[in-house]
């Protein structure tokens, strides 16, 4: 969730070698929290050694172990050179030849022996330290041909560490570390959280990736999209991770460290306060606004209780299919839907029919030139009754256990809404005939994500049972911006007045027709936007559970007339920056403690703070 709307900027100390001094990076914060701890570089296939000390008497043994590992590595590389000469050609073979020479290179070998002797550390750690230092110089060289040689040092390190049987192959993660990686899967996330990692920092990734969602679900602070900061970090370096602003600081100065410890304390105090606060879902003057959860994985269901969600405002069912890599049958889906309904009881669950396509293309589907504007959502469902039928039946059957609502994705035509309604009617009759319990009056609503629906909101409101606004896609379609494209990602602004205009129109039409309207995009979880959204008139906000506490804090601090005035000001603004400034000023005035955590310390202005206040 992009609480920071800034592009990654160049590291602060551009003149120094990459691995010296304090470095500040701006990424996208996807899971909230402020974390400070030692870095652990995660590299698939790589070995990492921890600093372990040995007794003075064991030093000679350690040096012998090192020599044996070098001999083994030499033999391996000689074999590889022979095979490489045959199969890959002379040039490739030379690279392995050079690696073999590196093993006995005095610059390396003697440096390692000296380190073992003088620092009394295990060979693996000495090898890693020496090679990392050499590698750093190489990575910082002007000549690209030299820089490329960095990979050779990594290869040699991995080979020697493996032959030492020291250090760990990557699957073992130490607790209380901040893991730094190029990219991670959601599965890695689960693994790491069980091992007690403090935080996760990735070069790649976006705010709606599975990894981001999982991090929030697991409560592990995370920042993504740091674009190569990994080259500036060593295992063991102190890292500060701010999952709210998306800032990562490597090797902080004492001063920086002190400031962020203070920020961490403020955040934790606020978080504890929020946790302890009563589960109120209304403004200070008693106007109700429902705070609900966006859910995709079973792991997130317990979070409903933890964060006081009044139901599931958006259950993204396509994730079940993607996780399995295939379509689930009726029984398999029913099992999950029932679990969700039970977890949310007595509050409703809004199941969105599978929205596949766009950035979530099924692996087996034929490649569309523009999947985002292509065969997705309700379009696929209406073309493939064998997908639609089991899903609708499973959802209808789940409705026997608690309140359920059905949400149709990517609607552009009234005809689509009518077709789904007709299908629901047919299936209800079927279930009736089979004697299977279900709610015959399950509400059917539409996603408002394509501008066409917002523009004709009155006509859709007359026939839909409810609206759910998906600001992520609505913003992309309205502004013509692909938020996943680095070149233009900064133009993706949900606070653009044009988007707000469509939101306003949608809410008015909904209320005129007497139906409810909720917002389920990431904006719903951004506490800086809560006042605006309440002022526009949304009946419910559905967000990642981790952010509900922050939204509630704002909600309970405002009065409806207040929020409405803010919304009117925002609607009259000229651009997103103006809106941002309005919202920030409002936040500073009405919830200064929250503003302090989101934007830096107002008492001692933070010179590193680039947040837009």
């Amino acid at each position: 969730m992009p609480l920071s709307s800034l592009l990654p900027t160049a590291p602060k100390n551009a003149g120094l070698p990459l691995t010296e001094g304090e470095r500040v990076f701006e990424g996208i914060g996807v899971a909230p929290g402020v974390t400070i701890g030692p870095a652990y570089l995660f590299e698939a296939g790589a070995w990492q050694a921890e600093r372990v000390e040995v007794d003075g008497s064991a030093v000679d043994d350690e040096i012998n172990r090192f020599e044996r590992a070098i001999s083994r590595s030499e033999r391996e590389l000689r074999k590889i050179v022979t095979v490489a000469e045959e199969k890959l050609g002379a040039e490739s073979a030379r690279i392995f030849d050079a690696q073999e020479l590196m093993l006995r290179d005095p610059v390396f070998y003697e440096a390692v022996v000296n380190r073992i002797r003088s620092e009394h550390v295990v060979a693996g750690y000495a090898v890693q330290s020496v090679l990392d230092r050499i590698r750093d110089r190489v990575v910082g060289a002007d000549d690209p041909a030299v820089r490329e040689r960095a990979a050779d040092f990594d290869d040699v390190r991995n080979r020697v560490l493996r032959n030492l049987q020291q250090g760990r192959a990557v699957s073992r993660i130490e607790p209380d570390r901040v893991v730094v990686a190029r990219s991670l899967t959601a599965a890695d996330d689960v693994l790491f959280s069980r091992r007690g990692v403090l935080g996760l920092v990735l070069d790649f990734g976006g705010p709606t990736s599975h990894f981001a969602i999982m991090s929030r679900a697991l409560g592990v602070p995370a920042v993504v999209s740091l674009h190569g900061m990994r080259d500036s970090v060593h295992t063991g370096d102190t890292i500060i991770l701010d999952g709210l602003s998306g800032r990562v600081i490597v090797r902080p100065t004492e001063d920086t460290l002190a400031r962020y410890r203070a920020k961490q304390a403020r955040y934790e105090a606020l978080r504890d306060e929020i946790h302890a606060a009563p589960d109120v879902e209304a403004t200070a003057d008693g106007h109700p606004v429902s705070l609900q959860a966006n859910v995709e994985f079973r792991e997130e269901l317990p979070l409903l209780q933890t964060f006081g969600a009044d139901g599931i405002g958006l259950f993204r069912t396509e994730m079940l299919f993607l996780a399995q890599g295939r379509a689930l049958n009726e029984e398999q889906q029913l099992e999950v839907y029932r679990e969700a309904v039970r977890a949310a009881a007595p509050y409703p669950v809004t199941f969105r029919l599978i929205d596949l396509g766009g950035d979530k293309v099924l692996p087996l589907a034929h490649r569309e030139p523009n999947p985002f504007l292509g065969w997705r959502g309700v379009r696929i469902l209406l073309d493939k009754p064998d997908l639609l039928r089991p899903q609708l039946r499973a959802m209808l059957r789940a409705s026997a256990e608690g309140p359920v609502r059905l949400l149709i994705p990517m609607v552009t035509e009234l005809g689509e809404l009518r077709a789904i309604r007709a299908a629901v009617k047919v299936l209800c009759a079927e279930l009736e005939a089979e004697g299977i319990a279900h709610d015959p009056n399950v509400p059917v609503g539409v996603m408002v994500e394509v501008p066409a629906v917002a523009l004709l909101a009155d006509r859709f409101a007359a026939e839909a049972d409810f609206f759910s606004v998906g600001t992520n896609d609505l913003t992309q379609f309205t502004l013509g911006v692909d938020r996943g494209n680095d070149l233009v990602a900064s133009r993706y602004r949900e606070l653009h007045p044009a988007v707000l205009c469509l939101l306003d129109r949608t809410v008015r039409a909904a209320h005129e027709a007497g139906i409810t309207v909720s917002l389920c995009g990431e904006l719903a979880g951004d506490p800086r936007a809560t006042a605006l959204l309440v002022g526009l008139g949304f009946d419910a906000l559905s967000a990642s559970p981790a952010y509900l506490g922050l939204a509630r804090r704002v909600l309970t601090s405002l009065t409806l007339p207040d929020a409405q005035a803010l919304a009117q000001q925002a609607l009259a603004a000229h651009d997103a920056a103006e809106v941002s400034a309005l919202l920030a000023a409002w936040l500073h005035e009405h919830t200064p403690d929250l503003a302090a955590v989101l934007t830096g310390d107002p008492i001692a202005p933070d010179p590193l703070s680039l947040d837009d206040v």
Partner: protein
Amino acid sequence: MITRDVTIRNRAGLHTRPASMIVREASRFKSEFFIRKDGYEINGKSIIGVMTLAAEQHSTLTFLLEGPDEVEAADALEALVERGFGEPI
């Protein structure tokens, strides 16, 4: 102690393959071997050192050799460079 000035002749310069050839050749001799370039001096028997020299075609290096077989070593190493390491010139 003797010195020889050499000029890199092959098109691709002192990349990994020539670098490893120099180090292997130099290791045959007892003499110490240093390479000087642009004010830097590195151990010519260190592949890490030579790999990171990144000397291009037409650049000049100074070979420094000291030891019992310094003349032989200098001749052999100079010849290697003159031949362009067996690569296109």
